[in-house]
C-alpha cells in the first residue's frame, strides 16, 4: 500500500488526504480484477484437463453458445458437450462455491475472534458439521424443515454446537487466541470420535459411502449439489459482506468498538451464525476440506490488505480459485483413481499453518 515515499514533515494537502482515504475505503479494484482473471483462467484449465481432453476453443465456444441470445458453433461433439456440462462444469462450479464459502467463513471467524488462526476446521466447526451430516446421511434422519434439506440442517446444528462450545471453553480459559484454538481442538476431537462411532454402527456399503464423503471430495454428477449449496452461499455471503466493516471496527477491541457506535455482541452473533451456516452448507455437499479457511484469508492479508473490507470479498475469490486449482490435482494426479481434495488442501495447508504460527507467534490482527 505504501506506493510513494512519504515526506517526513506533515504538509496539509487536501488531494493526498482524500486519495489516502479513498485507498482505505476502496475495495482494491485492481486486486479484484486480477483475481477474477486468475479464477477464469484456472476454471478454463480445469474444464479442459482430465481423462477426456477438451479443446480450449471448443469449451469457450460451448460456453458462449450457452449464453442466451448468442449462437456460436462450439465444434464439440455431443459426448464432449455432455462431459463439459454434466461432469466438468458442475464439479468446477461446486469447487468454486465451496472454496469461496470456506475462504469467507475463515475470514469472518478470524475477524470476530480477533484471531488470525481461527478457521472452520480448527475451531471444530467442520467436525461438528460433519458429525451432524454423518448422522443425517448414515441413519437417514429426516430433519428437513421448510426449504431446508436434512443434511445441511443437521450439519448446521452440529457446526453451531461446536463453535459455541469452543467459545465457552475459551471464555473459561481467558479467551486468548490459544485457548480458543485449544477449545476448537477439543471439540474437533470429540466430534471426530463421535463420527467414527456413528460410522462403525453402519453397514459396510453405507460406511464406505459416508467415509469417502467425509474425506472431502467434490465428486458430483449433475448440478444437484450446486443447487443445494447456492442459496446458502448467496444469503450468508450477503450477510457477511455487509458485516465486513464491523470486523474492522472490532479490531480496536470491544470497548472502543462500542464507544464508536457498534454493538459488538450483536455483530459477533450475526457473523458467527452466518459463517457457521456457510461452513455447514459447504461441509454437507463436500465433506471436510481442511485449511482453506485458514490459508486463503492469510494470502489476501499478506498480498493485499489487513482490512476485512478487502479480506472478506477477496477471500471468496481466492478461495474459489484455490479449491478449483487443487481439485485439478485431485482429479488428475492419480488418474484414473481419485485423490480426495481434502487430502491435498491438508498437504498444502498444514505447512502453511506452521509458517504462520512461526511468523505471528500468537499476535492478534
Amino acid at each position: 500500500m505504501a506506493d510513494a515515499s512519504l515526506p517526513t514533515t506533515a504538509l496539509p494537502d487536501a488531494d493526498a488526504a482524500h486519495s489516502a482515504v479513498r485507498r482505505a475505503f476502496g475495495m482494491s479494484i485492481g486486486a479484484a480484477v486480477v483475481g477474477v482473471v486468475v479464477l477464469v483462467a484456472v476454471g478454463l484449465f480445469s474444464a479442459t484437463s482430465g481423462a477426456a481432453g477438451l479443446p480450449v476453443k471448443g469449451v469457450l465456444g460451448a460456453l458462449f453458445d450457452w449464453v442466451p441470445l448468442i449462437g456460436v458453433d462450439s465444434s464439440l461433439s455431443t459426448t464432449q458437450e455432455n462431459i463439459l456440462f454434466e461432469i466438468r462444469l458442475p464439479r468446477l462450479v461446486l469447487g468454486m462455491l465451496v472454496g469461496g464459502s470456506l475462504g469467507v467463513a475463515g475470514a469472518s471467524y478470524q475477524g470476530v475472534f480477533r484471531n488470525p488462526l481461527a478457521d472452520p476446521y480448527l475451531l471444530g466447526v467442520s467436525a461438528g458439521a460433519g458429525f451432524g451430516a454423518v448422522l443425517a446421511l448414515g441413519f437417514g434422519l429426516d430433519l428437513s424443515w421448510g426449504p431446508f434439506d436434512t443434511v445441511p440442517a443437521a450439519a448446521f446444528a452440529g457446526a453451531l454446537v461446536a463453535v459455541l462450545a469452543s467459545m465457552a471453553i475459551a471464555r473459561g480459559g481467558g479467551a486468548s487466541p490459544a485457548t480458543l484454538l485449544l477449545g476448537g481442538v477439543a471439540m474437533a476431537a470429540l466430534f471426530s470420535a463421535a463420527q467414527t462411532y456413528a460410522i462403525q454402527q453402519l453397514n459396510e456399503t453405507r460406511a464406505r459411502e459416508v467415509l469417502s464423503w467425509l474425506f472431502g471430495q467434490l465428486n458430483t454428477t449433475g448440478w444437484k449439489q450446486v443447487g443445494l449449496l447456492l442459496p446458502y452461499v448467496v444469503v450468508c455471503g450477503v450477510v457477511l459482506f455487509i458485516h465486513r466493516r464491523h470486523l474492522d471496527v472490532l479490531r480496536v477491541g470491544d470497548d472502543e468498538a462500542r464507544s464508536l457506535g457498534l454493538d459488538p455482541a450483536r455483530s459477533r452473533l450475526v457473523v458467527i451464525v452466518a459463517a457457521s451456516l456457510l461452513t455447514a452448507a459447504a461441509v454437507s455437499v463436500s465433506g471436510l476440506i481442511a485449511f482453506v479457511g485458514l490459508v486463503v484469508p492469510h494470502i489476501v492479508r499478506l498480498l493485499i490488505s489487513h482490512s476485512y473490507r478487502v479480506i472478506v470479498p477477496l477471500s471468496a475469490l481466492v478461495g474459489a480459485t484455490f479449491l478449483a486449482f487443487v481439485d485439478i490435482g485431485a482429479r488428475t494426479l492419480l488418474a484414473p483413481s481419485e485423490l480426495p481434495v481434502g487430502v491435498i488442501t491438508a498437504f498444502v495447508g498444514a505447512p502453511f499453518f506452521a509458517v504462520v504460527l512461526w511468523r505471528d507467534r500468537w499476535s492478534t490482527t
Partner: protein
Amino acid sequence: MSPVLTASTQGSESAIRSAPALSCRDVRVSFRDQEVVCGVNLELDTGQWLGIIGPNGAGKSTLLRSIVGLAYYSGAIALGDGRTPAAADVALVPQAPIMPKGMTVAEYVLLGRTAHLGWLARESRADREIASSVLNRLELTAFADRFVSTLSGGEAQQVVVARALAQQCPVLLLDEPTSALDLGHQVSVLELVDDLRRTEGLSVLAAMHDLSAAARFADRLILIDHGRIVAEGRPAAVLQPDLLSAVYGTPLTVQPIDGELVVLPEPRRRAKPPKEAP
C-alpha cells in the same frame, strides 16, 4: 490567594451560559460490592473545558466510561436535549487505545464514522470527505498511509483525536490523553484540543493527571477522591495546596509562574524551616 492568580485564570471562562452540553445527576458505578463512583453531579457547559482531576483509582476513567455506555451506572447522564448520549453525540479518546496491526491511519480515522453508517455499512462520499478534512485539519496527511501500529506515541495520540473528531460529536471526552507523551507532545496535543474547542465549538471533558496542564487548559476543574467530588470550581479555587496534598497523599505546592499556576511536589530539602516536612 494573590490577586495575580485569580486574574490569570479568568480569561478563558466562557461568557455565554446556555443549556449544558452534558450533565450527570447522582451517577453511581459499582464493581462487585465496591462503589467506585459515588453520586457524582456535574454539568459541562457548551464550549467549556471541564477538567477532572484526582489520584489513580479515584473513579475518573470509570465516570468517563459510564458516559459513553461502557460501565453500568445508576443515576442520570443526559445531553442538553435530555437524551442519553450515543456514539454520535459523545466521542471518547481512550487512555490506552488499541492500534491494530496493518491498519492505516486513514482506515483508523474512518472508523470514527461507524455510528453514522447505514445498514449496508458502507461509507458515503460525505463520510470520506469528513475523514479527509479531519486529516487535513490535524496536518496528518503525510501519515495517512502509515500503519497505526508504527506511529510514535505523539503521532498515535493525534490520530486517535482525529478519529474522535471524525465522529463529529459536540462533546469530546479525553481519558488522560497525554499520560504516555513527552512534554512537548503533551502540550501540542492539549493545544490542539483547545484549538478545536474554540474553532469547532466542542465541549471537552478531560480526566487529567498533569495538574499544571489542567490549570492551564481547563475552564473549570472537578477534584474527585474515592468516587466523590471534593472540590469544584475555577482552577485557582480548586488547586489549593492543602487540599491537593491531602487528596494526593503527598505534600504539593501551587506556584504562579508567568501568570500560570504550576503544581509541584513540595521540595523536601529546602532551607526554609517552616515548610520542612515533619
